[in-house]
């Protein structure tokens, strides 16, 4: 079985997370091209905690949503968050994925609000769990960073 590169794994996991579908060739190539143009998204420059977020995030699945929620609140400038925003910007620029992003079932205001409230509640629970697990690691990472001797 051929090994999937981390970048391939990433674009697939992130696209599924954001749009519910696999990325097509245009999205893949646009994303890879974009990463080469944004050095601040280079994971080798990130803290070990931010690299951990990205490594786990690449696996996709149920973990990505709470990780993303955690990053939004506590690590908004992390490579995970920025790469997700970048990919979202690409997805909304491309016809097929843009249509998927805007697709929803219309409903009455009451039904819609109820649906959204449930979604927000799930999100909050996910972030709370992520906080319990990741919070100490994040705090340790920040402490170590602030205690590290400055380069001469």
């Amino acid at each position: 079985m051929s090994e999937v590169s981390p970048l391939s794994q990433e674009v697939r996991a992130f696209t599924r997370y954001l749009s519910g579908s696999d990325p097509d060739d245009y999205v893949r190539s646009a994303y890879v091209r974009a990463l080469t143009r944004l050095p601040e998204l280079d994971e080798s420059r990130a803290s070990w905690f931010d690299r951990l977020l990205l490594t786990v995030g690449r696996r996709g699945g149920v973990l990505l949503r709470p990780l993303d929620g955690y990053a939004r609140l506590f690590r908004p400038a992390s490579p995970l968050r920025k790469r997700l925003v970048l990919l979202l910007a690409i997805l909304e620029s491309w016809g097929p994925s843009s249509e998927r992003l805007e697709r929803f079932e219309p409903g009455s205001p009451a039904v819609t609000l109820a649906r959204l409230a449930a979604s927000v509640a799930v999100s909050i629970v996910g972030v709370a769990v992520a906080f319990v697990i990741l919070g100490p690691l994040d705090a340790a990472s920040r402490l170590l960073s602030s205690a590290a001797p400055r380069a001469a």
Partner: protein
Amino acid sequence: METVHVVGSGASAVHFALSLLERGFAVHMLDVGEDGEPLVAPEASFARLKWELADPARYFLGEDLRGVVMPDRPEPFHGIPPSKDHVLAKRLPFDLAARGFDARVSLALGGLASAWTAGCYPYNDRELASFPFGYAELGPYYDQVALRIGVSGSSDDLAEHIPLHRHLLEPLRLDDASQALLARYTRHRDSLRRRWGCTVGRARVATLTRDQDERHACRYLGRCIWGCPVAALYTPELTLAACKRFASFAYTRDCYVTHLEVDARRRVRAVVARPAAGGEPRSFPAQHVALGAGTLGSTRIVLESLFRISGERPVLPGLMDNRQLLMPIVIPSQIGRRFDPDTYQLNQIALGLDMPDSADRVHGLLTTLKATMIHPIVQALPLDLCTSLRLFRELHAALGLVNLNFSDQRRDQSYVRLEPRGENAPCALEVRYAVAGGDEARVRGSLARVRGALLRLGAIALPGMTRIRAMGSSLHYAGTIPMSVEPRPLTVSRDCASHDFENLHLVDGATFPFLPAKNPTFTLMANAARIADRAFR
């Protein structure tokens, strides 16, 4: 034939130039004139562009991805897309040192109005009280400019505070959310007017609703902010094209005017310019000169010229800008609906509110959210992106933004001057803005009133999301070299002739003695036409 040299190609400069040309004068326009990318796929709507372009991410996000709004973006987000990125200059040919003011300069062909939201709101007599003329004098020039650029709107309650000029075209087609708001205003009109002094009506916008010359009526492609592909939405470039049809018009591009050469009698002899990126200066001998380079641009030229002839570095007080608030709203009646992307993208509703403690009046523009890039909004929500996306798409049709403008007055504490930078270095332009005492209280005090009026209109201001923009963000700069009937230094006459230089006029917002809450661009154009008519006979 007398030649007038005009500096700049913005809204004021082009209407001044066209009026002169129509009166038989020759005009030589000197302009930096930076241009953006050419328009693409003229028949495609905003949504269709994503299917028809070979590389839509490049178009929507820019080659260097400057259109991606990252979480830690350092600069304020002006909402200007990559196709209009050139409108706010990134690299200036001079040093700009601003404090308390997000100062922006445009070197674009067409100036700042190349990326405007097309609002056309004439000043009334109360707002013109500080000017040396009233609506009776300025009114015919609003008519003239409306005929040139095409302004659509309605005769409605807004006419009580926003004079109705002639040649108003029929209004644009309303989107569903705007229709709902207006219907609600009709039902609750009396209580809104009585309790909040609130009047609501159709936005008056420089957008065609019928074909005019080579321009087409709005086709509701939803690309307004990105550049109207059918030229329905007016930009000064269209009037520049009209100027170019005159044999007596000359246009020199890549011309950054550094200063005016002035003789001992303080008569301008020449305009000195160089390429914007640097290079040898060139002197353009001039009989008459008109500065329309925008308030900061024109002011810099005057200050630099004064400095070169006398070594003076006077302080020019009175810099003004409209304080702006951005208030995201949700319209509950529209929740759960699909939004229609094929609509006019910019604001369709305007509102005005009286402030009880002052003679001030707040001017507001209500834009319901239509075709737009969604990631800047979605990534700002305090949730994971998946949940934020879901929230956004199901609320999209119900979302809107109220942009509130407040008036400003000239004050000594807000000024512009040249700042020395060393013996052989050119001076920097120092811009200093000090917020008036009580300004924050005025603004915050208005919020409760606005929220109350919006609630009556059926819109809820999202709590905690109202943003007070930094001064300078509205790009409505004015007031540094004001009109004055007394011939005082560093002022202009009622017809905007300089009191310092014999054959110089200033035709842009630098001359405004007061800045009402309304968008000033339509008045800038009308005033420029007025100057050309009255001062050049």
